[in-house]
């Protein structure tokens, strides 16, 4: 049992979308919390609202109502610039589609969050950042593929670059949306193993949206989504 206070806490989050003349309620009062070092699976059928919830937790979108507390501070109403800065410092993302910038090398992709976090005052730390990015890529087993562009890497390798990118700022929260959804079985296993190991090592709170029971089985706890609500379940 993890007794640490939650790093992220969602209270009664709601979100709906306009579809034609009507509104589609995707989240109808979701409560969820994430603690440091905890790995949670978020399960649910396609269209159940997993990605929507991840977007709200990651400050990529705003809820219609409810509260979102990051280390006890309300963040659901932050302005666009403030939420960007909060995201840069506190949240790492791993997407199903990898979302690497095709024009940049693996090293440059991993460097991006550090550069964005540092803003304009990164001159003095330039060498440190490159070293950190190289180490991050080394941790995911791509120490010799620094200069390769995404198109020159396999799907599994691209996702490993994405994991290195998500973790380079050592964020307290790591959100992964179907991280193995586009990978073959062998690569899925490697990527999942890496995600879980590095998340735990860095004491990040990890939330993995998946509909793969093999993935959820490796997590500390599972929350499931249906009808716009979540409920806690134990791993199988």
């Amino acid at each position, binding site marked *: 049992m993890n007794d640490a206070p939650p790093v992220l806490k969602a209270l009664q989050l709601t979100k709906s979308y306009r579809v034609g003349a009507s509104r589609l309620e995707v989240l109808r009062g979701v409560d969820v919390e994430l603690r440091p070092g905890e790995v949670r699976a978020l399960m649910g059928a396609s269209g159940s609202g997993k990605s929507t919830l991840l977007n709200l937790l*990651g400050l*990529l*979108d705003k809820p219609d109502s409810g509260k979102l507390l990051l280390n006890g501070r309300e963040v659901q109403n932050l302005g666009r610039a403030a939420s960007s*800065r909060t*995201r840069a410092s506190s949240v790492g993302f791993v997407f199903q589609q990898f*979302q690497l910038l095709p*024009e*940049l090398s693996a090293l440059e992709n991993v*460097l991006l969050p550090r550069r*964005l976090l540092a803003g304009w005052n990164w001159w003095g730390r330039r060498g440190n950042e490159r070293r950190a990015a190289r180490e991050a890529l080394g941790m995911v087993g791509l120490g010799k593929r620094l200069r390769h562009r995404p198109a020159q890497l396999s799907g599994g390798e691209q996702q490993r670059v994405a994991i290195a990118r998500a973790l380079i700022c050592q964020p307290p929260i790591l959100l992964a949306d179907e991280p193995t959804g586009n990978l073959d079985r062998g690569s899925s296993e490697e990527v999942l193993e890496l995600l879980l190991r590095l998340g735990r090592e860095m004491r990040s709170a990890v939330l993995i949206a998946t509909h793969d029971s093999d993935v959820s089985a490796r997590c500390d706890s599972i929350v499931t989504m249906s009808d716009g609500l979540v409920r806690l379940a134990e791993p199988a």
Partner: protein
Amino acid sequence: MTLLSLGLTYFRRRPLLLFSSVAIGLGVAVLFTVLAVMNGFLVELEKSIRSFSGDAVIENRYLPSREPFRFADYQAALAQVDGVQRLEPRLGWYALVGRRGGHAVTDPRSTDLSGMMLFGVDDAFANAEGDGATATGGNGDGAVPIPMRLGRQAAQRLQLEIGDELGLITFVQGGDGRPAPLRATFRLHSLLRTGRFDQEMDTAHVPRAALANLLQRDPPFTQVLVRTTPDADPLQVAEDVETALKKAKLALPGYPRTLTWREKGGTLLKAVENQRGMLSIVFFFIVLVAAYQLVATLTLTVTEKRRDIGVLRALGATPGRIVRFFVALGMVVTVAGIGIGLVLGQWLTSNLRTVEKWISGGERIFRAEVYKFEDIPVSVDPASVTLLIAATLAAALVFSLVPALRAARLRIVDSLRKR
């Protein structure tokens, strides 16, 4: 430097952005060339006016009822004026000049006759036969011809060669106070080359003493040219000269005596300056149109790179950062365009003759009869080029802002969605 390298990579890999640079470059090159040519005209006009008429000119006007002013009076009055390097007396007179013999000088309708401004000057005719010491007024048959330095274009038109004799007809005040015709013979001593077609077409230099003698003119000058020291401001010198003339009572009340080279060049200079202004505005519109297409190019880039923008925003890029990124991309495109434009413009201005031949198939487009100079003058003015660069960058900045703001307003979740 990752965002900058991303911008540079976009620039390198997207032909459309390069195309924008080329378009801006063409606009800049055209405007650079136009400005260089117009500046060249102004510089050469200034040179020709200053060398021809001095940095300032004192018109030697006096009341017939009073004793005329002497050159020595001017020398004495202006000896202490700062910036005055030298004074040159000059005697100006209008006349008709033509080949001697036949009916050229007797028939004013003859095409062998040219209206000419004769200037009696003191230089270059020393020791020439008939330089004033030997010439006599109203020289008829048997008199020694007066040497003349005739404008090169006029000599060509009249088909004259060095040593040929010329006839002159003018009018002077007769004994009864009425205009009386005066004929004289000159010999072509040399050709006057100023580089300006109009000056070479209607100007001739003759020895001042001989001309004064011929015209029975006293005092033997109508103008005093003021040559200033290189560091002096001709406007200031002209003002000081005017003050000194008034002090020495060499000025008529209420009559401006001293004209600067700029006032002397008056209408022509103003016309060229106005033309430069107008052309700058017209051609800057080309640059504006070229820069305007940045809106389209960058908007397309924003649309195509929508997912990248979403990723950058998800990783923590603020909207302001996205704006700066796309504005910087626009600036990269523009700076490259300016670079292309300056190189191309420099080449164009250095090879105007070649370009003229390409355009016309060998014919002269810029004819000296129209444009006054044999060669199209070119002068690159650093201030104009700086202004051109600044204006282009400013326009590009404004035009880049539109797509940049659009990129910053994109919703992250929409941008990241698989399309």
